[in-house]
């Protein structure tokens, strides 16, 4: 295995539950993702897949354990440094597209680039729109696009800053089979083309099986499949 780009060590995440002891969702997860690799995680609903993905992406903090990216511990980074890391090295795709309804498809894709630098990379945003087959819809607002199109725009948005790793949380969960297949293939093609690592959380075993490494989250622990 190549040297780990993203490493999770002994990740524990518990949540307070009213009137009861804390609920431990993740019970000591170790996971390493190397550059350009595709890692999938499956598990039943409520097993903590999304929580694990959020912790790996620096959106949530573990109760115990460490997450490091290229050897740097995330917990030692300031808010500004963590934000910069998410902006330039991480890309997020969620089950729901979460596009900003006040912006066009093109502007939504451009947004991470604007956050990175006021002189945004419009060329790359346009290129990605073409790659997801929506250049003709660049000036359309989210309410003018279909579910599959929205998710394709979300993929392009996650890729605009050429991140090292894409965190995809059930990206096809809201789509019908045909669109789900189309979106998944597109995600694989683009991440493969640009050598992005991909951490995919999904219910779809077929998609999960195509990963370089597949895991199942079961009772708070990862089992390699």
């Amino acid at each position, binding site marked *: 295995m190549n040297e780990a780009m993203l490493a999770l060590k002994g990740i524990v995440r518990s949540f307070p539950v009213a009137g009861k002891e804390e609920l431990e969702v993740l019970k000591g997860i170790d996971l390493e993702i190397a550059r350009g690799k595709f890692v999938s995680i499956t598990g039943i609903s409520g097993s903590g897949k999304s929580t694990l993905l*959020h912790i790996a*992406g620096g*959106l*949530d903090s573990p109760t115990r354990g460490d997450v490091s990216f290229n050897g740097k511990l995330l917990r030692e980074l300031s*808010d*500004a440094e963590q*934000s*910069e*890391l*998410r*902006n*330039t090295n*991480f890309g*997020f795709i*969620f089950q*729901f597209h*979460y596009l*900003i*309804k*006040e*912006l066009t498809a093109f502007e939504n894709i451009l*947004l*991470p680039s*604007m*956050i*990175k630098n*006021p002189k945004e990379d419009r060329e790359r945003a346009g290129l990605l729109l073409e790659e997801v087959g929506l250049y003709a819809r660049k000036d359309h607002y989210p309410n003018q696009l279909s579910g599959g199109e929205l998710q394709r725009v979300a993929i392009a*948005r996650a890729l605009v*800053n050429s991140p090292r790793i894409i965190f995809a949380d059930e990206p096809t969960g809201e789509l019908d089979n045909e669109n789900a297949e189309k979106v998944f293939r597109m995600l694989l093609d683009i991440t493969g083309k640009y050598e992005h690592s991909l951490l995919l959380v999904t219910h779809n075993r077929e998609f999960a099986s195509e990963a370089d490494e597949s895991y199942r989250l079961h009772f708070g622990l990862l089992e390699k499949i």
Partner: protein
Amino acid sequence: MRYQNFLAGRFYKSKKGGFLSFISFISVIGIAVGVFSLIVVLSVMNGFTEDLTEKVIGTKAHIYISSMYGGIKDPFGTAERIKKLPGILGASPVSSSEIMIRDGDSVGGGILFGIDPESIDTVTDFGKYLIIGEPRDIKDGGAVIGSELALELSAGINDKITLISPNVKVTPSGAMVPKTVELTIKGVIKTGMYEYDKSFIYADLEDFNDLFDTGKGTATSLYVKIKDIYATRRYMDMISPLLSPGHYMRDWIDMNHNLFTALKTEKFVMGLILFMIIFVAGINIINTIVMLVQEKRKEIGILRALGSRSSGIKRIFLLQGAYIGAIGTAIGAFAGIITVVLIDVLNIRIPGGGVVYYLDVLPVRLKVLPDILVIIAGAMAISLVFSLLPASWASRIDPIKAIRHE
């Protein structure tokens, strides 16, 4: 373009329709009404103060020189020496004292000014306020009386007026009777200050000296007019070495200290009360932004995931307050300035003006510095300070909770 400005603009524009739009509109209107009221009211108060100042110093001097030992012995010589100083526009001897005016069987009070008709216009606006006659008409037993006094006495040009001095003379029979003088009305003055126009009488300085036995060629004071009316202290320091011991000086600010302090205090309190309107509008801004933050929780979460710093989120919502403040201030300032200009151009008459109030028309004076700038800066500062609270709250929203909120 900075993404915060870009998103803030889009979020602001997106509030079309609905309760949030209504609250936002109310906030804008609140700021606008506050700014408008402040500009109009303070401009009227400025106009009032300036008009009053002009009238007060128009009929009186900028600097008064008096003597502790009765009158000034050589007022004309002293005036000539003072006039040679830089920045001195004029110096003229003036005497004044309270007198009684006999009108048939009734007697009323007044103030008699003994003036030098040749030089009085170098120190006051006496000639400007004369509605009938010329300053030189007071020579040889002539008098100029206030317009209200003329009405009260039903006196006209060339009518006789009898002035009674508090000084007494002893008759051959040994009786003590007040000194009187009969003057011919040669002119009427109207300053617009009711109190002045109702009681002021102007006569030649020598007629005054005869009536009061103050000695030929003397004056109770010397009026001095200067170039910069707010630098009286500097001029008084320059004049002081020219005066012999026993003379003292007072300026127009000292003489009218209570009046101008009251005006200044009134303006400050009025400004403070009107700023409360903007303060209340500021509270509306908090409501508007809290509601917007609540509506945009999901977007806040996704922006954090895309790499926006918490300070970036804060700026987006701070800008919402800035937009409300800027639009409200711009509307208020525009409407306020237009209103002030219209009041000025239309010469709006005050009901009862000239009788109940000393003014005939509503005076206005727009002061960009400091008034307009302080109002604009104050309204913007209140908008931003009140936006800070909800903007800080927005910046602390947990991205995961925000995304799951959906």
